[in-house]
């Protein structure tokens, strides 16, 4: 009964399975590696939808109601600018005085039904806390699930490498001849590479000279990487200082569309060019396995993005906050522009690299079609999502933009990949890399939270606009509210005194430490037990072999050697089928369920 209703629920949920047909086609032609990018994109999109609903319901709608119901809204001038198409690109102008940005939101109470007040100040902060908490729980949960599945269950990284490669390596969903041939060659390459690598490990005796050369090159390349990071940070800072902020401060010296867009364009170009330098460096560094090369490249790429974003955040909070009148709206606009320019660059990449390569390959046979760079594209997704988290507090309608952007990217990439790309020859550990991507997403989420937290707790909000214009920091709203409660209610006062006392806090820390120690001990003991069980299995196998040998010796010559115990279902099937003389086929499911009932300790 329970299974039946669960099954029905599953069928209903499947109806909402977004883009299922597209994913099937991609999987059939390219295998799981390329499909993993699209699945990741779908997951990020689905995560953004609840965030959008939260901000829409709790922030945008009350603000719209405020606009229409309040008789004399204070501090709100009508929208003086008109909507021209260019606002979609720059995000300022008409959009500055709409619900798009922080600066438009009121600090008053919205009263639609008389007597019920909706306090915008508290709503803004609490909604912010709400969606960050939601993302934290979702990301933490999926990261832990992924980690558990692929690292802990597998019991270590290299243990079952060959077995996994050969006996689980074939993707049964492949439908096209080209993909099949490519999969075969990629398995062959991986086998050869790995055998060569393990042979080298066994026989290598590197001379001192070679080791020194290798290490000096590694140090040199890391020095180059660090200097590139510093240079890109400096460039970002200079461009922001010279061009972007000038439009806000002084309209005469800036060019209307180019100046605000200069910083995002420079940022995206750096992100396009510098990884190529990284790839060049890695080609010359001697890595023992190609996957280490991939991991190092991903780390360097993410470090580059993180550096540039950190410089930007510093610039916004230190320089822009002190110079500009309504700096939060400016930050929101900057992030909006970053998102749009990122979208344009992604589309251009699809157009130029993939489409162009295909055209070239049609004309000149030597140029091959482009491969779909799954790793690079997934990292771009992580970057764009972290922009969204960074900008949520300053631009509540940003999730809409990001959702539309993701939908556009999905369709463009899906058609581009099928028309223009060829399957990659390099082997791809889809499972392990998924854990790494979710890990990066989680890291960037934490960094964005820290940055926004910094802005909320420490930076003074602008006095001209926004819900917090009369406060020293945005967080002061909460502390004021707590003070009010404490003053009005003795119980609350006592409660807060107790919580913030040193005794309570140290007690909590000691408790956490004890829980940590306990779980660690349990984990160690489980590991010991697993080792013991493995030894036990080996020795039982030896016993079995010994007994079988004895049995063979005793048996009379000529008798048939008895079969080893066969698979469970096969035996059950043989047991059932003679009994069922009439009637047709015995289906697998009925046998499996019968066997399950018969032996509940399986």
């Amino acid at each position, binding site marked *: 009964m329970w299974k039946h209703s669960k099954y029905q629920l599953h069928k209903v949920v499947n109806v909402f399975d977004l883009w299922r047909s597209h994913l099937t086609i991609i999987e059939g032609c390219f295998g799981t590696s390329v499909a993993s990018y699209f699945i990741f994109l779908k997951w990020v999109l689905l995560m953004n939808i609840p965030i959008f609903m939260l901000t829409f319901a709790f922030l945008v709608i009350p603000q719209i109601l405020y606009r229409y119901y309040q008789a004399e809204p204070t501090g709100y001038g009508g929208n003086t600018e008109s909507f021209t198409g260019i606002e979609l690109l720059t995000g300022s102008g008409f959009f500055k005085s709409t619900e798009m940005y922080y600066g438009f939101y009121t600090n008053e109470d919205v009263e639609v039904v008389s007597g019920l007040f909706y306090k915008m100040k508290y709503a803004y902060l609490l909604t912010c806390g709400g969606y960050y908490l939601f993302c934290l729980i979702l990301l933490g949960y999926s990261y832990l699930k992924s980690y558990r599945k692929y690292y802990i*269950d*597998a019991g270590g990284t290299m243990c*079952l490498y060959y077995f996994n490669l050969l006996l689980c390596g074939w993707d049964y969903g492949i439908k096209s001849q080209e993909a099949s041939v490519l999969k075969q060659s990629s*398995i062959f390459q991986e086998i050869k590479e790995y*055998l060569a690598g393990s042979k080298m490990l066994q026989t290598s005796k590197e001379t001192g000279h070679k080791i020194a050369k290798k290490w000096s090159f590694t140090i040199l390349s890391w020095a180059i990487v660090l200097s590139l990071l510093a240079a890109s940070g400096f460039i970002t800072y200079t461009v922001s200082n010279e061009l972007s902020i000038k439009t806000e401060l002084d309209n005469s010296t800036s060019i209307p569309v180019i100046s605000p867009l200069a910083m995002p364009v420079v940022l995206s170009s750096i992100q396009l060019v510098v990884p190529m330098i990284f790839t060049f460096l890695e080609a010359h560094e001697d890595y023992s396995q190609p996957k280490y090369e991939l991991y190092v490249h991903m780390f360097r790429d993410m470090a580059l993005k993180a550096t540039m974003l950190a410089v930007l955040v510093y610039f916004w909070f230190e320089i822009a906050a002190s110079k500009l009148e309504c700096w939060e709206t400016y930050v929101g606009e900057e992030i909006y522009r970053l998102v749009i320019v990122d979208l344009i660059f992604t589309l251009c990449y699809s157009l130029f690299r993939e489409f162009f390569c295909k055209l070239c390959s049609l004309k000149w046979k030597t140029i091959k079609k482009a491969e779909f760079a799954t790793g690079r594209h997934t990292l771009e997704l992580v970057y764009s999502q972290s922009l969204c988290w960074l900008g949520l507090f300053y631009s509540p309608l940003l999730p809409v933009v990001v959702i539309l952007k993701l939908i556009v990217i999905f369709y463009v990439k899906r058609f581009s990949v099928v028309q223009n790309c060829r399957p990659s020859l390099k082997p791809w550990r889809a499972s392990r890399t998924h854990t790494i991507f979710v890990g990066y997403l989680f890291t960037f989420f934490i960094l964005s939270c820290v940055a926004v937290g910094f802005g909320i707790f420490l930076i003074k909000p602008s006095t001209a606009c926004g819900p917090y214009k009369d406060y020293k920091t945005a967080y002061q709203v909460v502390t004021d509210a707590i003070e009010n409660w404490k003053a009005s209610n003795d119980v609350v006062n006592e409660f807060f005194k107790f919580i913030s006392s040193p005794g309570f806090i140290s007690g909590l820390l000691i408790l956490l430490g004890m829980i940590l120690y306990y779980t660690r001990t349990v984990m160690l003991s489980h590991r010991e037990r697993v080792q013991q069980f493995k030894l036990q299995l080996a020795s039982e196998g030896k016993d079995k072999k010994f007994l079988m040998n004895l049995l063979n010796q005793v048996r009379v010559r000529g008798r048939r050697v008895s079969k080893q115990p066969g698979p469970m279902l096969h035996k059950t099937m043989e047991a059932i089928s003679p009994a069922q003389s009439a009637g047709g086929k015995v289906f697998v499911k009925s046998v499996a369920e019968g066997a399950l009932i018969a032996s509940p300790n399986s």
Partner: protein
Amino acid sequence: MGGSQSVFTEEELDDYQTLTYLSKKEILHVFKRFKSLAPGLVEANKNVKLPMSKITEMPELKVNPFRDQICKVFSSSGDGMTFEDFLDMMSVFSDGAPKNVKVEYAFRVYDFDGDDLISDSDLQNVIEKLTGANQLNEADMQQLIENIMEEADLDDDKTLSFAEFEHVISKAPDFVNSFRFRM
């Protein structure tokens, strides 16, 4: 879709649904695919047994290096597949089949000589089929087989029994995902 719906009665569809891991819609879809392999023969008699050569025309099987072995395992009579055999095969390869069923059938697919053990010769067959046109040399092949046995053979009898196979494959995270046909 309307044409194939009239081929089965509601009762038959219900039975098939209980007996396999597929939904009614998927069963009809499977029948459509079975019919497309040999439209004339299936139209005449829906319980016809199609020869192996026709079954391996199916796109997923056509490019699969283990197609002959898969057909052999799922065919109830050994020389062809009826619709019910075909349905059973698609059921095991569907998303709804539990892991232990898939593991069981993966074992039987990789056990080429049918002795319920995966021995060196079975592994050699698997490797040859997997690498396709590019063939490994003798030394590499031996090394590879030795490595696999070292990883998976727990009782050191130089063959993989079903228990060992199941134990090792339950740790492979990609197995369930790769051992299926997409509908």
